């Protein structure tokens, strides 16, 4: 061992000196999920436009796949990526204890006070390894929305083979609305999530290099 290695001058902490916030599996599944979600949302909008549930359609420029058949090809390809990645994320999140440590417990009073602080711009982000109550609620919510969109999607895709699941979502027609509502929740989350990540760039850095 060299002297340089043991006696180093004081310096600003390098990346390796900072504690690990997001282990590799979190970062990998996060970005795979981001890609899969964008493909699913873009193609889903095109599919929606073929038989709109409400009095509007999505702009063609934002929709993926050029036409219905193309969008369906994208949707039923990216679903495998979304599902496989989601299952890996949930299993590792539960087995590693990360969900338990990071996301629980959530107290309504804390959510309220943290939300107020956030809206006043006074919520600290000094320690990225600890989530505030609003973050906990949002991250739990997005997991629930993710599970809901996959299950409601399966119930629309296979209303005969998975008819019990379809019934659980209130039948074929209602399941389409559930699927749409889950998409809306995910897009709303995405807007807030990306805005905040850009406001606190070190959180983005942590999701890329882990520290």
């Amino acid at each position, binding site marked *: 061992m060299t002297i340089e290695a043991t006696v180093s001058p004081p310096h600003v902490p*390098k990346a390796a000196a900072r504690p690990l916030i997001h282990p590799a599996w979190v970062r990998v599944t996060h970005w795979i999920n981001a890609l899969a979600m964008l493909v699913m949302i873009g193609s889903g909008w095109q*599919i929606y436009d073929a038989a709109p549930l409400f009095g509007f359609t999505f702009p063609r420029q934002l929709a993926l796949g050029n036409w*219905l058949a193309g969008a369906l090809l994208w949707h039923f390809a990216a679903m495998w990526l979304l599902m496989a990645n989601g299952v890996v994320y949930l299993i590792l999140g539960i087995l590693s204890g990360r969900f338990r440590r990071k996301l629980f417990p959530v107290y309504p009073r804390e959510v309220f006070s943290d939300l107020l602080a956030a809206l006043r711009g006074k919520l600290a982000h000094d320690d990225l390894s600890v989530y505030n109550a609003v973050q906990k609620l949002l991250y739990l919510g997005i997991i629930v929305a993710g599970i809901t969109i996959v299950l409601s999607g399966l119930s629309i895709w296979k209303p005969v083979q998975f008819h019990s699941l379809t019934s659980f979502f209130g039948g074929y027609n209602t399941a389409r609305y559930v699927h749409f509502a889950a998409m809306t929740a995910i897009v709303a989350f995405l807007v807030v999530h990306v805005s905040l990540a850009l406001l606190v760039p070190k959180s983005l850095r942590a999701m890329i290099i882990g520290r």
Partner: protein
Amino acid sequence: MARQRKVLPGVDPKLLIEDAGKLLPEPSRRLFLRGAASLGALAVLSGCDIVDGDTSENALRVISTFNDRVQALLFNPNTLAPEYPETMITRPFPFNAYYSEDEAPDVDGEQYQLEIGGLVENKKPWTLPELHKLPEVSQITRHVCVEGWSAIGSWQGVKLSDFLKLVGADLSAKYVWFQCAEGYSNTIDMPTALHPQTQLTLKFDHQILPRAYGFPIKIRIPTKLGFKNPKYVTAMWVQNNDAGGYWENQGYNWFSGL
């Protein structure tokens, strides 16, 4: 608790923001979202060299073929499509085709013969009176369109599996192919053809099948999407090669099971 903005050592926040920006559906990234036109996110993942739309389209079609196999595995020959009470029948039941209702085939029932071919023992064509003499089955099931909408209808006719046995079809063959009056066609897998609810349909809501719904014969398959339910059927062939179909050949998923 005051917010503190620290300068990040060794990391340029602007670069990070640019990286994140690439994941946003901003105008400059719309090409990415258009996907099939040029660059495909999925093909990027698979490491393919994307130079044109054909490459990503081919990759997507390979996955669609994989999805055919998955759906064939998911298909349980004993799982029945849910049936509904008469009060839930969608009225009027929608007419749906790639042409308008007045352009629909107008088949002459008197002259009509259903042609039978391929791997069957008895290739004698069937007239409508002969078909109407066969035992009738009935179902009120949900027609699910590939576009997403659905409608509940009431169909009566001959159980297709009974008819296939009657004409001495080779039930170990892989496919049944249907030809229609206007040039439409469909190929379905034998397990679906033998499903108890797959029907050679002669009536809608206990009335002779109207022209709008496929007179004189529709193949009603409640375990498949609407476009896999051919109307104005004029010929049925039992065979081992996949002859494709009108929409399947244009990129819609072949199995399209429900």
